[in-house]
């Protein structure tokens, strides 16, 4: 009897894809240790010079800046996405449910360019927000929102909202409602039920959502490039500049490698750091 029919057929295409991906990553890794020959697409011998250069303040600052940006974005996204996910999972009206689902999920499929562009119209000096503020008499002249970190974060929060909502909602939908009812019957009011039962039980979804938002923000390019306008430098914008303005692919590759390592480290740390949070509830 054949116990695993078609195993080869099922796995080998995936194996090829994995091989391709691995080769691409290996190529980045290999390039990161090559010498840059200015004015040429070819690369020189092996060196660690690229990594040493990263200690320069300009690059160290870009890394720090990117990580900060990612944290702020993920945190704001979490705060805004949670109520939405909660409403999505808990509403009894299927019309409200469908509306929230479509509204929350559609932006996920619009791509970074369309969404960033729409934020440019919202944040611009003649844009929606400034016109509104001036008309309402809240400010005399337009507030500079384009080309600021705040503007970039607002747009990035919007970019990461859908995936956060989906992950939080998936977590929330797996919570046993009877646990909340039991807590209620034991004398806990709505806020206490939320803090001691719902929130701790949705921790896996929160961690997953936060990590993903962090990773997506780290990966975002169009938003910091267009809304930051070169004044908000992140790892992604640097890599693009290095690659396509000066064709310094070795250095772009080494930035990628360090960037990847950093974001993986932060995500791993997040998972570690949030573990005690799950235990928190039992202590209160």
């Amino acid at each position, binding site marked *: 009897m054949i116990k695993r029919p078609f195993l080869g057929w099922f796995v080998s295409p995936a194996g090829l894809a994995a091989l391709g991906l691995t080769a691409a990553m290996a190529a980045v890794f290999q390039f990161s240790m090559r010498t840059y020959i200015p004015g040429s697409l070819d690369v020189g011998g092996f060196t660690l010079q690229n990594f040493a250069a990263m200690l320069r303040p300009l690059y160290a600052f870009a890394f720090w800046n990117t990580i900060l940006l990612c944290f702020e974005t993920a945190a704001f996204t979490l705060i805004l996405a949670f109520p939405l996910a909660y409403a999505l999972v808990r509403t009894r009206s299927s019309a409200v449910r469908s509306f929230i689902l479509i509204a929350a999920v559609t932006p996920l499929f619009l791509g970074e360019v369309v969404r960033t562009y729409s934020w440019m119209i919202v944040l611009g000096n003649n844009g929606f927000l400034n016109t509104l503020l001036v008309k309402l008499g809240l400010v005399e002249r337009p507030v500079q929102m384009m080309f600021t970190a705040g503007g970039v974060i607002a747009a990035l929060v919007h970019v990461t909202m859908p995936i956060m909502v989906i992950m939080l909602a998936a977590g929330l939908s797996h919570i046993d409602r009877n*646990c909340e*009812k039991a*807590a*209620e*019957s034991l004398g*806990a*009011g709505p806020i*206490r039920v939320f803090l001691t039962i719902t929130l701790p*039980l949705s921790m896996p979804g929160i961690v997953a959502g936060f990590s993903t938002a962090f990773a997506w923000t780290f990966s975002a390019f169009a938003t910091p490039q267009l809304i930051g306008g070169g004044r908000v430098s992140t790892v992604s914008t640097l890599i693009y500049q290095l690659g396509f303005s000066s064709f310094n692919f070795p250095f772009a590759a080494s930035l990628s490698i360090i960037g990847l390592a950093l974001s993986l480290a932060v995500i791993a740390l997040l998972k570690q750091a949030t573990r005690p949070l799950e235990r928190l*509830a039992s202590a209160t």
Partner: protein
Amino acid sequence: MLMHTDRTAATAGSEAGRQGQPAVQLDGVTKRYGESIALHEAWLKIRPAEFMTLLGPSGCGKTTLLNLVAGFLEADGGEIFIEGTLVTETPAHQREIGIVFQNYALFPHMSVANNIAYGLKTRGIGRKEIARRVDEALALVRLDGFSDRKPRQLSGGQQQRVALARALVIKPKVLLLDEPFSALDKNLRGSMQVELKQIQRELGVTTIFVTHDQGEALSMSDRIAVMSAGRIRQIAAPGDVYCRPADRFVASFVGNVNVLTGRLVERRGEAATVSVGKMRLEVPAAPLAKLAVGDDVDVFIRPEHLAVTPGTAPGSLRGTVTTQVFQGDHIDLYIEIAGVARAPVLLRAPGIAALSSCPAGAEVGLIVGSDDVVAFPPEARES
């Protein structure tokens, strides 16, 4: 046991409520979901320390009723009282009820001790007092030494004990049990039933128990409320529900029953006489009030109330054995009775004698050996 002192304290507090006041009272409580009525004007009074079972098939409204008492649902009409206090609009967390769910709903992120302590913490009780009462509760459900375990490290039976301890430790005014045994295997179920009943009696806690299992309901309850299609059909002690069902639904839902076609012969006050073939039977008259003498009736007879009689005793029914089924301590005989029963009649013959005396194909006589026979109008006429 350990909880004894607490019990006197708890009962002293509600002593006023004992003066004839029901522990739980529902006055015409109605619940709708859009068009459909989940619960139709339920009237129910539960006595202090009583074990009241809500019995019925799924969708009959029993869980809705439980959720209304708990405060998880809002009534569309009627009032609910707990120990004489109107609670219809009281939020669940202020009703002081304990509840055990079918899936137990233990807080997965908390230890056993913290699960049990949860209700005490919400009441702002001191740390030492909490520790003492958690230990007591663990002892009550015989789980001493399990306080640091997480729920997922416990067996189904142990989880149920924790859920029970968690609900009881707050000294609830009412204990609500939502099909708590259905997730347990058969052997464990039996012993947990005995244990729960023991604890309930010992603490004297008023209990509402929801189940679809008639065996469970008959064996554990002080009284049973049989429900169907959002209505309470009968509220009575288990024996009365079984022997004097109020309507055909109760008669057929609780226990096995044979339905035979008969005729109303005579009515005298409380009692009436019906005939089934040549047999004459005394039945309660109340359900037949709308019928005239000579009308058709459906006669409900329990399998164990039928007996096989040798020869042709006067007033017996004659039938043919179609199947016999060996059940260990008794034999189930299926007997075809022409003109009286549409399906073969089930008869429970004690012992194993019937195995040889009533083989398939044999002609036998049948008599009814009990007064607990009821009759109802035929299905079409009862609405």
